[in-house]
């Protein structure tokens, strides 16, 4: 009768609380601890990446002027002035750090880890050891990044896109560029580990009754992102390895022109490999945000998510199409016209599922009963910035208009609205929302709202300013953009944009204060379900117990059951938890779906469903 204990206990053991410091904070295996580790790590790099952005904005507002105070710290070798060499490293590392060491660990590493097991009714991820390894591999990659700043010739300087030949030895000599590429490879490995874990967990560890059509949109977002990570980060790894081989061993994958010996490689090959990863990557960085928004809008409009299945299909369609649109980053490289036109058609088509998603969100909040909670404000903000940002993608998707707009600040404004602003706002919304699950009580509401408004106004100011200057023709990545007759007059708008950036930066102080005071507050009296929502994580205490669920829940309904008249009548509240039945009876185990292995437990009770 008895299954051997190590087999299934390893999978769904009820954890005893860890006792040693190492088991509690360093080498834990508990997805909730790993989530916090990723969150702290990501916040630190967000600070670094943000500082770099401020330096770039300083240089554009006051070209050639020494940076006050911080200039003496970071640019002491040039008297506090940002030099052209510094500048190329600044925009390169700003982009790479924000993508791989800020957004990814926060949105995916932290919130994927936190939400997936809890929202599907599991006790932990499928592979806890792999999870721990994933975090420490990421830490290793972060150390490589920091190390790259300290080597002779400085850190990477070929743009986040790292195009050869500029990223080769002749273009950017020294260890800095190589270390950074190695760091990308390492963090990519961590991401793949996480992706394998997340996908396996969602497929295999859903609680009984948690069918695919009852998954919260948050979990769908994380699941699809994890699949994209598993598929496309390896392509970046491949492209990156070839670059490192060119740099270290004299191979000729990307070498061409005067630098090539007898046989020339192809620099455009790198662009293909990079963007086959790079375009799915931007969806990787937004799908979790779409998931948060889809859920929060329903939760706080007290209304079911409008056409839930349509949203899931839209997110899935975008994921499937994400790799076949990548050529729109390469329209000016001289590709065959037919190929370019195919990419254009596909890129225009991929905008349709995204539009559908928006319509569903707008329909959800309409005729709702909106509670303007902090997470809801951040969700609304995300919709606002992704709306404007996403729409500006259309003239970029089109080849003829892109001939003008390519490599201008219009592109920079577009992706900072869709990627940076939307992911930023959604992630902070998630932090405020799930803070009680991680640390016990809610964060301070007033500070959170100051944080929101400074961020929202700041983000919009900066990136709409960039859209304007890009429309006027300002090229991107210029140390001094005002060298040309067609851009000299744009100093004014650049200064205004920079003031919005400093405003944005200042506003983060409200979060920093709120974060430190809330994390370290010792207050045992915390409400269990302050948001009054029905997803599974809110059925357990705050902060979440080590073992998550003392009993694995049986799921009775979807995650968006709000304002059901029957529920209001029978349960006396406008929300139904996914573990609750309307008539108050105990939920029954669903019939086993497959003909799989049935197992009787010690109590001789009914067979548990072993597969869904």
């Amino acid at each position: 009768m008895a299954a051997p204990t190590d087999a299934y206990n390893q999978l769904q053991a009820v954890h005893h609380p860890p006792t040693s410091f190492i088991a509690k904070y360093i080498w834990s295996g508990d997805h909730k601890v790993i989530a916090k580790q990723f969150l702290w790590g990501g916040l630190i790099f967000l600070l670094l990446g943000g500082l770099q952005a401020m330096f770039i904005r300083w240089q554009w507002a006051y070209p050639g002027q020494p940076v006050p105070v911080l200039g003496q710290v970071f640019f002491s070798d040039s008297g506090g002035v940002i030099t052209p060499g510094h500048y190329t490293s600044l925009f390169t590392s700003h982009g790479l750090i924000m993508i791989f060491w800020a957004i990814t660990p926060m949105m995916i590493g932290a919130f994927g880890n936190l939400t997936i097991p809890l929202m599907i009714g599991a006790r932990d991820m499928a592979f806890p050891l792999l999870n721990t390894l994933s975090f420490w591999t990421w830490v290793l990659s972060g150390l490589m990044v920091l190390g790259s700043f300290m080597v002779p010739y400085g850190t990477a300087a070929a743009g986040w896109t790292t195009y050869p030949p500029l990223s080769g030895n002749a273009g950017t000599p020294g260890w800095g560029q190589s270390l950074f590429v190695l760091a990308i490879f390492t963090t990519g490995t961590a991401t793949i580990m996480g992706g394998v874990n997340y996908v396996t967990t969602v497929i295999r560890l859903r609680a009984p009754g948690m069918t695919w059509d009852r998954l919260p949109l948050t979990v769908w977002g994380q699941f699809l992102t994890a699949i994209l990570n598993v598929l496309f980060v390896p392509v970046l790894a491949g492209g990156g390895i070839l670059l490192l081989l060119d740099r270290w061993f004299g191979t000729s994958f990307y070498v061409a022109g005067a630098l090539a010996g007898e046989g020339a490689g192809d620099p455009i090959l790198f662009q293909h490999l990079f963007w086959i990863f790079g375009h799915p990557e931007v969806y990787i960085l937004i799908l979790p945000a779409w998931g948060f928004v889809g859920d929060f809008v329903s939760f706080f409009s007290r209304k079911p998510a409008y056409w839930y299945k349509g949203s899931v299909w839209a997110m899935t369609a975008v994921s499937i199409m994400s790799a076949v649109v990548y050529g729109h980053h390469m329209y000016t490289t001289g590709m065959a016209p037919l190929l370019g036109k195919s990419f254009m058609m596909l890129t225009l088509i991929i905008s349709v599922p995204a539009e559908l998603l928006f319509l569903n969100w707008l329909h959800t909040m309409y005729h709702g009963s909106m509670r303007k909670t902090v997470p809801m404000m951040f969700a609304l903000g995300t919709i606002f910035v992704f709306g404007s940002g996403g729409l500006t993608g259309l003239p970029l998707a089109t080849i003829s208009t892109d001939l003008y707009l390519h490599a201008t600040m219009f592109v920079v404004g577009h992706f900072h609205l869709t990627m940076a602003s939307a992911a930023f706002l959604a992630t902070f919304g998630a932090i405020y929302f799930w803070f009680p699950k991680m640390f016990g009580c809610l964060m301070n509401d007033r500070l959170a709202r100051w944080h929101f408004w400074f961020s929202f106004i700041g983000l919009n100011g900066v990136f709409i300013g960039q859209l304007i200057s890009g429309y006027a023709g300002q090229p991107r990545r210029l140390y001094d953009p005002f060298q040309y007759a067609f851009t000299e007059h744009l100093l004014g708008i650049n200064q205004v944009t920079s003031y919005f950036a400093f405003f944005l930066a200042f506003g983060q102080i409200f979060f920093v204060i709120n974060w430190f005071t809330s994390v370290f507050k010792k207050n045992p009296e915390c409400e269990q379900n302050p948001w009054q929502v029905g997803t599974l994580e809110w059925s357990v205490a705050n902060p979440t117990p080590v073992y998550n669920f003392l009993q694995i829940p049986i799921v009775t309904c979807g995650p968006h059951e709000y304002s059901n008249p029957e529920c209001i009548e029978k349960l006396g509240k406008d929300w139904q938890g996914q573990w609750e039945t309307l008539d108050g009876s105990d939920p029954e185990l669903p019939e086993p779906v497959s003909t799989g292995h049935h197992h009787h437990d010690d109590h001789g009770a009914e067979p548990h469903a072993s597969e869904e």
Partner: protein
Amino acid sequence: MDLLKRLQHRWYQLVAALVLYGMPLDVFAAVEKETGYDMPRDVSLDGHRITWLINITMWFLVVLFVIMVIWMAIAMFKHDESHPAEYDHGDAGKQIAVALSISGVIFLVVDGNLYVNAMIDLDEVFWNFGEYDDNPETIKIEVNAHQWAWDGRYAGPDGKWNTQDDAITLNDIRVPVNRPVLVQLTSSDVIHAFNLPNMRVKTDAVPGTVSPLVFQAKETGEFDIACAEHCGAFHYKMKGKLTVLSQEDYDLWLNEVSHQSSLAYNPDDTDAHWGWPWKEL
């Protein structure tokens, strides 16, 4: 490709750098400055197609965005906590049809307009390289980009490329007004991009390949050439000047430069012979 072999000699870069930095910015003062946040002056025959398509699309986008914001405002202020929520899953057949129809209409109008016009514009002008190449009126120019300057080459009276009478220029491309121009671009080191904002077009200059770019100027004057692909620390200064002249002035200038280049021609200086046989398109 073996057409474009060119060894990198430091002295050539040094000369280019000296010329570039030595030149007072005044030289570029003749290029008329822009004002306002509109696109730079369009002096090309066909740039208006791009200008129009961008502008009308931006109007569509603004309209859609405003509708979205109004919708959100109603939800936020009228359908707030004082308003009872509807228990509506939105998955009835009629509702789905409405949602798909709205998306479909937006797609057909906005995306459709972009797609149809882009296909026409690419086929008729911007990627219609074969027709430009076959046209005997077309001015043909070879441009080699390198850190951080633009080398220009005109075939000269003998009509052959990479010969003694080729007119060689530095950061200085001149064309006659009202004649089609076809530029073939490459680079000898890293990727650059040849950007003519006043013609609305740009194309990458990639080492190992030759990329085409077409335009036709309809006004005389002096305009910026900018680099539009990050190419190193001095990418921001990789500035050239595009001058559009009357036909007579252009002919005079070309003859003069061809003559000067011919005199300066050194058969042993392989660096300077970076040209290539014109690539048939």
